[in-house]
Protein backbone atom coordinates (compact mmCIF):
# COMPACT_ATOMS: atom_id res chain seq x y z
CA UNK A 1 0.00 0.00 0.00
CA UNK A 2 2.75 2.35 1.03
CA UNK A 3 4.68 1.48 -2.09
CA UNK A 4 1.71 2.18 -4.35
CA UNK A 5 1.24 5.57 -2.69
CA UNK A 6 4.90 6.39 -3.28
CA UNK A 7 4.72 5.38 -6.95
CA UNK A 8 1.56 7.40 -7.39
CA UNK A 9 3.23 10.37 -5.73
CA UNK A 10 6.25 10.20 -8.02
CA UNK A 11 4.18 9.89 -11.17
CA UNK A 12 1.91 12.74 -10.11
CA UNK A 13 4.88 14.93 -9.29
CA UNK A 14 6.49 14.23 -12.67
CA UNK A 15 3.26 15.10 -14.44
CA UNK A 16 2.72 18.29 -12.46
CA UNK A 17 6.29 19.54 -12.94
CA UNK A 18 6.10 18.84 -16.66
CA UNK A 19 2.65 20.39 -17.03
CA UNK A 20 3.49 23.55 -15.12
CA UNK A 21 6.76 24.17 -16.94
CA UNK A 22 5.10 23.66 -20.33
CA UNK A 23 2.27 26.01 -19.39
CA UNK A 24 4.80 28.69 -18.45
CA UNK A 25 6.73 28.24 -21.69
CA UNK A 26 3.55 28.26 -23.74
CA UNK A 27 2.54 31.56 -22.19
CA UNK A 28 5.70 33.11 -23.62
CA UNK A 29 5.47 31.43 -27.02
CA UNK A 30 1.78 31.60 -27.85
CA UNK A 31 1.57 35.34 -28.64
CA UNK A 32 4.47 34.86 -31.02
CA UNK A 33 2.84 31.92 -32.77
CA UNK A 34 -0.39 33.89 -33.24
CA UNK A 35 1.57 36.89 -34.47
CA UNK A 36 3.40 34.73 -37.02
CA UNK A 37 0.11 33.34 -38.32
CA UNK A 38 -1.41 36.81 -38.54
CA UNK A 39 1.65 38.10 -40.37
CA UNK A 40 1.56 35.24 -42.89
CA UNK A 41 -2.08 36.03 -43.69
CA UNK A 42 -1.42 39.78 -43.86
CA UNK A 43 1.46 39.31 -46.30
CA UNK A 44 -0.53 36.94 -48.49
CA UNK A 45 -3.61 39.18 -48.59
CA UNK A 46 -1.55 42.13 -49.80
CA UNK A 47 0.70 40.11 -52.12
CA UNK A 48 -2.09 38.94 -54.43
CA UNK A 49 -3.40 42.44 -55.23
CA UNK A 50 -0.80 44.73 -56.86
CA UNK A 51 -0.44 48.13 -55.20
CA UNK A 52 -2.28 47.03 -52.09
CA UNK A 53 -1.25 48.61 -48.81
CA UNK A 54 -4.11 47.92 -46.40
CA UNK A 55 -7.17 45.76 -46.05
CA UNK A 56 -10.25 45.14 -43.94
CA UNK A 57 -11.49 41.72 -43.00
CA UNK A 58 -15.08 40.92 -43.97
CA UNK A 59 -17.22 38.03 -42.83
CA UNK A 60 -18.90 36.09 -45.63
CA UNK A 61 -20.74 33.80 -43.24
CA UNK A 62 -20.16 32.30 -39.81
CA UNK A 63 -16.97 30.49 -40.82
CA UNK A 64 -15.40 32.16 -43.86
CA UNK A 65 -13.79 35.55 -44.26
CA UNK A 66 -12.54 37.55 -47.22
CA UNK A 67 -10.61 40.79 -47.45
CA UNK A 68 -11.31 44.15 -49.05
CA UNK A 69 -7.98 45.50 -50.21
CA UNK A 70 -7.16 49.20 -50.69
CA UNK A 71 -4.30 51.01 -52.44
CA UNK A 72 -2.20 53.89 -51.10
CA UNK A 73 -4.87 56.45 -52.10
CA UNK A 74 -7.48 54.56 -50.10
CA UNK A 75 -9.25 53.40 -53.25
CA UNK A 76 -10.64 49.87 -53.44
CA UNK A 77 -7.98 47.86 -55.31
CA UNK A 78 -9.63 44.46 -55.21
CA UNK A 79 -10.58 41.54 -53.04
CA UNK A 80 -8.44 38.78 -51.54
CA UNK A 81 -10.34 35.54 -51.22
CA UNK A 82 -8.91 32.67 -49.18
CA UNK A 83 -10.11 29.17 -49.96
CA UNK A 84 -9.23 25.53 -49.60
CA UNK A 85 -9.92 22.18 -51.16
CA UNK A 86 -8.52 18.70 -51.59
CA UNK A 87 -5.57 18.16 -53.88
CA UNK A 88 -3.77 14.93 -54.67
CA UNK A 89 -1.93 14.56 -51.37
CA UNK A 90 -4.15 16.49 -48.99
CA UNK A 91 -5.64 19.89 -48.36
CA UNK A 92 -4.55 22.90 -50.40
CA UNK A 93 -4.88 26.36 -48.87
CA UNK A 94 -4.64 29.31 -51.19
CA UNK A 95 -5.58 32.94 -51.55
CA UNK A 96 -6.56 34.67 -54.79
CA UNK A 97 -6.76 38.36 -55.57
CA UNK A 98 -9.48 39.68 -57.89
CA UNK A 99 -10.29 43.07 -59.38
CA UNK A 100 -13.25 44.98 -57.81
CA UNK A 101 -15.47 44.03 -60.80
CA UNK A 102 -14.55 40.33 -60.50
CA UNK A 103 -13.51 40.21 -64.15
CA UNK A 104 -9.85 39.40 -63.67
CA UNK A 105 -7.53 37.79 -61.18
CA UNK A 106 -4.65 39.88 -59.87
CA UNK A 107 -2.58 37.06 -58.42
CA UNK A 108 -2.65 33.79 -56.55
CA UNK A 109 -0.65 32.39 -53.67
CA UNK A 110 -0.72 28.82 -52.46
CA UNK A 111 -0.29 29.05 -48.70
CA UNK A 112 -0.14 25.37 -47.84
CA UNK A 113 0.02 22.19 -49.83
CA UNK A 114 1.19 18.63 -49.27
CA UNK A 115 1.33 17.68 -52.96
CA UNK A 116 4.11 15.46 -54.28
CA UNK A 117 7.35 17.46 -54.20
CA UNK A 118 8.70 18.08 -57.69
CA UNK A 119 5.36 17.29 -59.35
CA UNK A 120 2.14 18.61 -57.77
CA UNK A 121 4.30 20.56 -55.35
CA UNK A 122 4.99 22.93 -58.24
CA UNK A 123 1.62 24.58 -57.55
CA UNK A 124 3.53 26.25 -54.71
CA UNK A 125 6.04 27.77 -57.14
CA UNK A 126 6.05 31.15 -58.86
CA UNK A 127 6.03 29.75 -62.40
CA UNK A 128 2.58 28.20 -61.91
CA UNK A 129 1.14 30.98 -59.78
CA UNK A 130 2.24 33.68 -62.26
CA UNK A 131 -0.37 32.30 -64.67
CA UNK A 132 -3.09 33.78 -62.49
CA UNK A 133 -1.83 37.34 -62.90
CA UNK A 134 -4.33 39.05 -65.19
CA UNK A 135 -6.23 35.82 -65.76
CA UNK A 136 -9.76 36.41 -67.04
CA UNK A 137 -12.33 34.86 -64.71
CA UNK A 138 -15.29 34.87 -67.07
CA UNK A 139 -17.10 32.62 -67.73
CA UNK A 140 -14.82 30.43 -65.56
CA UNK A 141 -11.16 29.46 -65.33
CA UNK A 142 -10.35 26.50 -67.55
CA UNK A 143 -7.51 24.02 -67.18
CA UNK A 144 -5.72 23.11 -70.42
CA UNK A 145 -2.92 20.70 -71.27
CA UNK A 146 -0.14 22.39 -73.15
CA UNK A 147 0.14 26.12 -73.73
CA UNK A 148 -2.74 28.51 -73.09
CA UNK A 149 -4.58 29.89 -76.09
CA UNK A 150 -7.33 31.93 -74.40
CA UNK A 151 -6.93 34.40 -71.59
CA UNK A 152 -9.10 32.43 -69.15
CA UNK A 153 -6.91 29.33 -69.37
CA UNK A 154 -4.34 27.91 -66.99
CA UNK A 155 -1.85 25.36 -68.35
CA UNK A 156 -1.77 22.20 -66.23
CA UNK A 157 1.56 21.20 -64.70
CA UNK A 158 2.98 18.22 -66.59
CA UNK A 159 2.48 15.07 -64.52
CA UNK A 160 0.33 16.88 -61.98
CA UNK A 161 -3.05 17.37 -63.59
CA UNK A 162 -4.90 16.49 -60.38
CA UNK A 163 -3.10 19.12 -58.33
CA UNK A 164 -3.51 21.73 -61.07
CA UNK A 165 -7.20 20.94 -61.42
CA UNK A 166 -7.64 21.16 -57.65
CA UNK A 167 -6.30 24.73 -57.67
CA UNK A 168 -8.53 25.72 -60.59
CA UNK A 169 -11.56 24.15 -58.90
CA UNK A 170 -10.91 26.03 -55.66
CA UNK A 171 -10.58 29.28 -57.63
CA UNK A 172 -13.79 28.70 -59.59
CA UNK A 173 -15.60 27.78 -56.38
CA UNK A 174 -14.44 31.01 -54.74
CA UNK A 175 -15.50 33.15 -57.69
CA UNK A 176 -18.87 31.44 -57.91
CA UNK A 177 -19.44 32.02 -54.21
CA UNK A 178 -18.18 35.58 -53.84
CA UNK A 179 -19.07 37.21 -57.16
CA UNK A 180 -22.84 37.40 -56.55
CA UNK A 181 -22.32 38.07 -52.85
CA UNK A 182 -19.93 41.01 -53.19
CA UNK A 183 -21.33 42.56 -56.38
CA UNK A 184 -24.82 42.52 -54.92
CA UNK A 185 -23.57 44.10 -51.71
CA UNK A 186 -21.84 46.86 -53.68
CA UNK A 187 -25.00 47.65 -55.61
CA UNK A 188 -27.01 48.15 -52.46
CA UNK A 189 -24.29 50.31 -50.93
CA UNK A 190 -23.87 52.67 -53.89
CA UNK A 191 -26.58 52.21 -56.49
CA UNK A 192 -25.53 53.42 -59.92
Amino acid at each position, binding site marked *: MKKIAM*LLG*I*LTLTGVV*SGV*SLALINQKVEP*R*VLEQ*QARAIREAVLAVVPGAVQFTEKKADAETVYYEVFDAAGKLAGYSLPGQGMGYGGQINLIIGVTPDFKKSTGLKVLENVETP*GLGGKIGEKAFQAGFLGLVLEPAVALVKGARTKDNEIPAITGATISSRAVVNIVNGLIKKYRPLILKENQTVNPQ
Partner: protein
Amino acid sequence: MNEKTATLKKDFLFGLWQNVPPFRLMLGLCASLAVTGMARNSLAMALSVAFVLIGSNVAVSALRRFVPDSVRIPVFVVIIATFVTIVDLFLRGWFPPLSKAMGPYVPLIIVNCIILGRAEAFAFKNPVLNSLLDAVGHSLGYLWALLLIGCIRELLGYGSLFGIQVLGAWFQPWVIMILPPGAFLTLGAVLGFFNLVSRRR
Protein backbone atom coordinates in the same frame (compact mmCIF):
# COMPACT_ATOMS: atom_id res chain seq x y z
CA MET B 1 44.91 10.29 -19.35
CA ASN B 2 43.28 9.04 -16.21
CA GLU B 3 40.59 6.42 -16.18
CA LYS B 4 37.71 8.82 -15.68
CA THR B 5 38.41 10.99 -18.71
CA ALA B 6 39.01 7.84 -20.72
CA THR B 7 35.49 6.59 -19.92
CA LEU B 8 34.05 10.01 -20.71
CA LYS B 9 35.78 10.03 -24.05
CA LYS B 10 34.60 6.52 -24.78
CA ASP B 11 31.01 7.45 -23.90
CA PHE B 12 31.20 10.43 -26.22
CA LEU B 13 32.69 8.60 -29.19
CA PHE B 14 30.44 5.57 -28.86
CA GLY B 15 27.45 7.20 -30.56
CA LEU B 16 29.52 8.95 -33.19
CA TRP B 17 30.60 5.88 -35.08
CA GLN B 18 30.34 2.51 -33.36
CA ASN B 19 26.72 3.03 -32.32
CA VAL B 20 25.61 5.68 -34.83
CA PRO B 21 21.82 5.60 -34.46
CA PRO B 22 20.19 4.91 -37.82
CA PHE B 23 22.95 2.77 -39.33
CA ARG B 24 24.10 0.65 -36.38
CA LEU B 25 21.34 0.81 -33.80
CA MET B 26 18.69 0.76 -36.53
CA LEU B 27 16.71 3.18 -34.38
CA GLY B 28 15.15 6.51 -35.31
CA LEU B 29 14.47 5.22 -38.81
CA CYS B 30 11.03 6.78 -39.14
CA ALA B 31 12.42 10.31 -39.09
CA SER B 32 15.44 9.27 -41.16
CA LEU B 33 13.06 8.24 -43.92
CA ALA B 34 10.34 10.84 -43.58
CA VAL B 35 12.03 14.23 -43.34
CA THR B 36 15.29 13.73 -45.23
CA GLY B 37 14.04 14.89 -48.64
CA MET B 38 16.06 18.07 -48.23
CA ALA B 39 19.27 18.71 -46.32
CA ARG B 40 17.68 21.66 -44.49
CA ASN B 41 14.93 19.47 -43.04
CA SER B 42 17.48 16.82 -42.07
CA LEU B 43 19.44 19.44 -40.17
CA ALA B 44 16.36 20.76 -38.38
CA MET B 45 15.22 17.27 -37.41
CA ALA B 46 18.68 16.26 -36.16
CA LEU B 47 19.00 19.44 -34.07
CA SER B 48 15.52 18.93 -32.59
CA VAL B 49 16.37 15.34 -31.71
CA ALA B 50 19.69 16.52 -30.26
CA PHE B 51 17.95 18.98 -27.93
CA VAL B 52 15.48 16.36 -26.74
CA LEU B 53 18.10 13.64 -26.37
CA ILE B 54 20.51 15.82 -24.40
CA GLY B 55 17.74 17.23 -22.20
CA SER B 56 16.16 13.87 -21.45
CA ASN B 57 19.45 12.06 -20.88
CA VAL B 58 20.58 14.67 -18.37
CA ALA B 59 17.18 14.78 -16.63
CA VAL B 60 16.86 10.99 -16.46
CA SER B 61 20.39 10.64 -15.16
CA ALA B 62 19.88 13.33 -12.52
CA LEU B 63 16.64 11.72 -11.33
CA ARG B 64 17.82 8.11 -11.50
CA ARG B 65 18.13 7.71 -7.71
CA PHE B 66 14.63 9.05 -7.04
CA VAL B 67 12.69 7.13 -9.64
CA PRO B 68 11.77 3.54 -8.71
CA ASP B 69 12.39 0.90 -11.36
CA SER B 70 8.75 -0.02 -11.69
CA VAL B 71 7.62 3.42 -12.92
CA ARG B 72 10.75 4.46 -14.80
CA ILE B 73 9.28 4.11 -18.29
CA PRO B 74 6.28 6.42 -17.70
CA VAL B 75 8.62 8.94 -16.08
CA PHE B 76 10.99 8.75 -19.09
CA VAL B 77 8.11 9.27 -21.47
CA VAL B 78 6.81 12.32 -19.59
CA ILE B 79 10.31 13.84 -19.51
CA ILE B 80 10.82 13.20 -23.22
CA ALA B 81 7.36 14.52 -24.11
CA THR B 82 8.10 17.71 -22.17
CA PHE B 83 11.27 18.40 -24.15
CA VAL B 84 9.58 17.53 -27.43
CA THR B 85 6.75 19.96 -26.73
CA ILE B 86 9.30 22.69 -26.01
CA VAL B 87 10.97 22.07 -29.39
CA ASP B 88 7.61 22.03 -31.16
CA LEU B 89 6.55 25.35 -29.59
CA PHE B 90 9.92 26.90 -30.36
CA LEU B 91 9.79 25.92 -34.03
CA ARG B 92 6.22 27.14 -34.37
CA GLY B 93 7.05 30.50 -32.85
CA TRP B 94 10.38 31.19 -34.49
CA PHE B 95 10.62 29.02 -37.61
CA PRO B 96 7.07 28.54 -38.92
CA PRO B 97 8.11 27.38 -42.42
CA LEU B 98 10.35 24.66 -40.94
CA SER B 99 7.64 23.67 -38.52
CA LYS B 100 5.23 23.32 -41.44
CA ALA B 101 7.73 21.34 -43.52
CA MET B 102 8.31 18.80 -40.77
CA GLY B 103 4.63 18.53 -39.95
CA PRO B 104 3.77 15.76 -37.50
CA TYR B 105 7.36 14.51 -37.32
CA VAL B 106 8.33 16.96 -34.59
CA PRO B 107 5.72 15.71 -32.08
CA LEU B 108 6.63 12.20 -33.20
CA ILE B 109 10.14 12.63 -31.77
CA ILE B 110 8.49 11.44 -28.56
CA VAL B 111 8.42 7.93 -29.99
CA ASN B 112 11.88 8.14 -31.53
CA CYS B 113 13.45 5.04 -30.01
CA ILE B 114 16.94 6.54 -29.83
CA ILE B 115 15.80 8.79 -27.01
CA LEU B 116 13.96 6.23 -24.93
CA GLY B 117 16.72 3.77 -25.81
CA ARG B 118 19.54 5.96 -24.45
CA ALA B 119 17.50 6.85 -21.35
CA GLU B 120 16.93 3.18 -20.59
CA ALA B 121 20.27 1.76 -21.73
CA PHE B 122 22.57 4.50 -20.48
CA ALA B 123 21.29 7.54 -18.61
CA PHE B 124 19.37 5.58 -15.97
CA LYS B 125 22.55 3.75 -14.95
CA ASN B 126 25.24 6.40 -15.34
CA PRO B 127 26.30 9.77 -13.85
CA VAL B 128 25.07 13.05 -15.32
CA LEU B 129 28.32 14.01 -17.08
CA ASN B 130 28.65 10.63 -18.80
CA SER B 131 24.99 10.77 -19.84
CA LEU B 132 25.47 14.25 -21.26
CA LEU B 133 28.44 13.11 -23.35
CA ASP B 134 26.59 9.99 -24.43
CA ALA B 135 23.69 12.17 -25.60
CA VAL B 136 25.96 14.62 -27.42
CA GLY B 137 27.79 11.78 -29.12
CA HIS B 138 24.62 10.09 -30.30
CA SER B 139 23.14 13.44 -31.38
CA LEU B 140 26.18 14.18 -33.53
CA GLY B 141 26.04 10.66 -34.90
CA TYR B 142 22.39 11.12 -35.80
CA LEU B 143 23.17 14.55 -37.27
CA TRP B 144 25.79 13.35 -39.73
CA ALA B 145 23.71 10.32 -40.63
CA LEU B 146 20.60 12.38 -41.42
CA LEU B 147 22.64 15.00 -43.25
CA LEU B 148 24.22 12.29 -45.38
CA ILE B 149 20.83 10.89 -46.40
CA GLY B 150 19.35 14.38 -46.85
CA CYS B 151 22.25 15.60 -49.02
CA ILE B 152 22.16 12.52 -51.25
CA ARG B 153 18.40 12.80 -51.74
CA GLU B 154 18.37 16.56 -52.29
CA LEU B 155 21.33 16.45 -54.67
CA LEU B 156 19.79 13.74 -56.84
CA GLY B 157 16.18 14.84 -56.42
CA TYR B 158 16.53 18.59 -56.89
CA GLY B 159 20.14 19.07 -57.94
CA SER B 160 20.61 21.37 -54.97
CA LEU B 161 22.15 21.34 -51.48
CA PHE B 162 20.51 23.30 -48.64
CA GLY B 163 18.32 24.93 -51.28
CA ILE B 164 21.27 26.20 -53.35
CA GLN B 165 21.38 24.89 -56.90
CA VAL B 166 24.71 23.09 -57.36
CA LEU B 167 24.06 20.99 -60.45
CA GLY B 168 23.58 22.87 -63.71
CA ALA B 169 20.63 22.91 -66.09
CA TRP B 170 21.94 19.75 -67.78
CA PHE B 171 20.91 17.77 -64.72
CA GLN B 172 17.58 15.96 -64.94
CA PRO B 173 16.31 15.68 -61.32
CA TRP B 174 15.42 12.17 -60.16
CA VAL B 175 12.02 12.95 -58.71
CA ILE B 176 11.83 9.52 -57.09
CA MET B 177 14.61 10.48 -54.67
CA ILE B 178 12.38 13.07 -52.97
CA LEU B 179 9.46 10.66 -52.81
CA PRO B 180 9.20 8.01 -50.08
CA PRO B 181 10.78 5.25 -52.24
CA GLY B 182 13.87 7.44 -52.58
CA ALA B 183 14.27 7.38 -48.81
CA PHE B 184 14.28 3.59 -48.75
CA LEU B 185 16.68 3.37 -51.69
CA THR B 186 19.11 5.81 -50.11
CA LEU B 187 18.93 4.25 -46.65
CA GLY B 188 19.43 0.78 -48.12
CA ALA B 189 22.41 1.86 -50.19
CA VAL B 190 24.04 3.71 -47.29
CA LEU B 191 23.43 0.80 -44.89
CA GLY B 192 24.95 -1.60 -47.40
CA PHE B 193 27.96 0.65 -47.75
CA PHE B 194 28.47 0.81 -43.99
CA ASN B 195 28.21 -2.95 -43.61
CA LEU B 196 30.75 -3.36 -46.37
CA VAL B 197 33.16 -0.95 -44.68
CA SER B 198 32.84 -2.57 -41.27
CA ARG B 199 33.29 -6.08 -42.69
CA ARG B 200 36.58 -5.06 -44.31
CA ARG B 201 38.01 -4.02 -40.97
